[in-house]
């Protein structure tokens, strides 16, 4: 086994603040050059985990390795990391150049080397004209570039991002997102990126770790996370609008519940196909078939349209089927209005089936 293929490893990490267990038994391996996104709602422990990796928080138990080195009790600056913060955290009294070189000066890097690295970072981030300015005279986007530059000059193996784009407006956020992606492709460093924005997560990540209550709910590629959520939490968290969840049972190769009977022939069971207890089936809005496609579906039903949201590219329909609320997507040009009755079909091969008690995928 090639040790170096693991850039960052977290082993059995625990972090308690008094009685509160913020991180519990956390394990994660991050590969060399990987872009890992820690995703979750606020309070899930994602930023805390990042701070532990950075060495800004003392762990209660467990070990952290970076590049095969046990860094659990090392100073942040000795871990070979660079970090970018949400609020940019630029030193207000120093110029951009001072901000970029501060860490290098602390590490007693030779002066010409500092100049070289600052120049290179400034070039990469296109902030050369700003070098003599103070942070107060910069726009939000410029400040965030400088913050990224500060991590860049350190010439480190691992970049840590703590919600770096949250303070920016929507347009700038999209631009910088693309730029970050490009930066990753160019530098090929390991990057760990914390966000609560699933679009950022899906677009940037090689792998996503979804966290909740100090635990990792699922770790996988965006594709896996989206298409094969391992539990109800992940299924509900990822995707907008959220997945339709229908409760019922498995009966003779069919899902049965809410007067629906959906054949499960196409579904790839990961564990067992004979589950006696209550289950829940999750179907993404885009996997509900409408229009001509309905005819091809093995199971069909008629729903009543309640609300129609026109998004331009497609149309989002909120409907009811008996007591069940169902959301689905239609083409942007489809003409449905509130009160219409529509026939829809279900494609169970792309659905997710969960044990309703343990909430894990079947």
């Amino acid at each position, binding site marked *: *086994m090639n*040790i170096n293929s693991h850039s960052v490893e977290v*082993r059995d990490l625990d972090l308690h*603040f*008094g009685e509160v267990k913020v991180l519990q038994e956390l394990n994660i391996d991050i590969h060399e050059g990987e872009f890992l996104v820690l995703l979750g709602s606020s309070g899930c422990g994602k930023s*805390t985990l990042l701070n532990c990796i950075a060495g800004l928080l*003392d762990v209660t138990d467990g*070990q952290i390795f970076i590049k*095969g*080195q*046990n860094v*659990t*009790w090392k100073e942040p600056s000795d871990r070979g990391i660079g970090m970018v913060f949400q609020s940019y955290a630029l030193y207000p009294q120093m110029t951009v150049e001072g901000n970029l070189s501060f860490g290098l000066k602390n590490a007693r890097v030779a002066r010409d080397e500092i100049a070289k690295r600052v120049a290179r970072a400034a070039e990469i981030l296109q902030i050369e004209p700003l070098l003599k300015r103070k942070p107060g005279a910069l726009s939000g986007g410029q400040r965030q570039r400088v913050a990224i530059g500060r991590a860049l000059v350190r010439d480190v193996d691992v970049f840590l991002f703590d919600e770096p784009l949250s303070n920016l407006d929507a347009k700038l956020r999209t631009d910088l997102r693309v730029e970050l992606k490009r930066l990753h492709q160019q530098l090929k460093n390991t990057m760990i990126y914390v966000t609560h924005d699933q679009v950022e997560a899906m677009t940037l990540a090689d792998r996503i770790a979804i966290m909740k209550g100090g635990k990792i709910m699922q770790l996988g590629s965006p594709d896996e996370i989206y298409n094969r959520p391992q539990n109800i939490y992940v299924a509900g968290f990822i995707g907008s609008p959220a997945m339709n969840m229908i409760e019922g049972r498995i009966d003779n190769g069919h899902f049965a519940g809410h007067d629906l009977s959906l054949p499960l022939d196409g579904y790839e069971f990961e564990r067992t196909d004979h589950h006696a207890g209550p289950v829940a089936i999750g179907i993404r809005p885009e996997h509900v078939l409408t229009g001509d496609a309905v005819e091809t579906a093995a199971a069909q039903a008629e729903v009543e349209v309640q609300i129609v949201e026109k998004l331009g590219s497609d149309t989002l329909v909120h409907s009811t089927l008996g007591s069940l609320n169902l959301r689905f997507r239609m083409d942007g040009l489809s003409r449905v209005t509130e009160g219409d009755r529509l026939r829809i079909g279900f494609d169970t091969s792309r659905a997710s089936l969960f044990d309703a008690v343990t909430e894990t995928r079947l």
Partner: protein
Amino acid sequence: MTLADTARVSDNPVRRPKQLFRNLSAKFASIPMILTALVVFVGGTAWTVAHSFTKSRLLPKWDFVGLDQYERLWNSNRWIISVENLLIYGVCSLVLTMVLGFTLAALLDRKIRFEGAFRTIFLYPFALSFIVTGLAWQWILNPDFGIQGVVRNMGWESFTFDPLNDPDIVIFGILIAGLWQGTGFVMVIMLAGLRGIDEDIWKAARVDGIGITKTYVRVIIPMMRPVFVTALVIIASGIIKLYDLVVAQTNGGPGIASEVPAKYVINYMFEAQNLAQGFAASTMMLLSVIIVLVPWAYLEFGGKKRG
């Protein structure tokens, strides 16, 4: 875990470093604070409390007499009056300083002209010591030369305003001077707090049609809790130490009508040369402070974590 992993973890045993040596610079830098807290405040207090159970006179001595000093303390008319005075002064001063300080700050915060001038006027007394404050107000409240005398000279012969010589209201005469000295600083703190309130809050209140007074009481003041806490610590610590002002203004008089506990402590320690009695009185003061303060301080400063 793979075999390789296991091997590496044990090859490279990084145990949790000794708690004592974590954060060493911070601990090193805190030595002055720790020494002050432990040696001066805890040590000094313990020394004082311990000696309050003795019959030390001029010099501290170890002649244990149990609770005798306390019994005598609470049988002393002067001590009872001192405590009553401190309560009256304390409550009035706390409430009035807060209310006046806040009101002045609120008035100054209404985008008025000459704000700087008014602010300086309200604040400058804080630069003067209590001794100076006491002397100045003793002078102004002097019945012959001061306000009373002047009003009487203007023809209103029956006008009486002589708080410093009336045992029933003398403590309020001291209060006038105390407020004069201290409200300015509280006003500045309050003003700072008001300036820290997001403008949007005001806009929201405006849109909701909430009146200005109501906005202050219901919205702004609750938001300024930390500001009030800081102000409270500063005012309260001043109140309990009330001494110089009384000495300069009335020296406890008329009679013993304006005595305060700190003065009792000092007089008994040094004038009566009964250290233990003074220590017993200061222990009582400290005890009341601790009873009020410790639970609060714990909630305010102790339990909170950052992040």
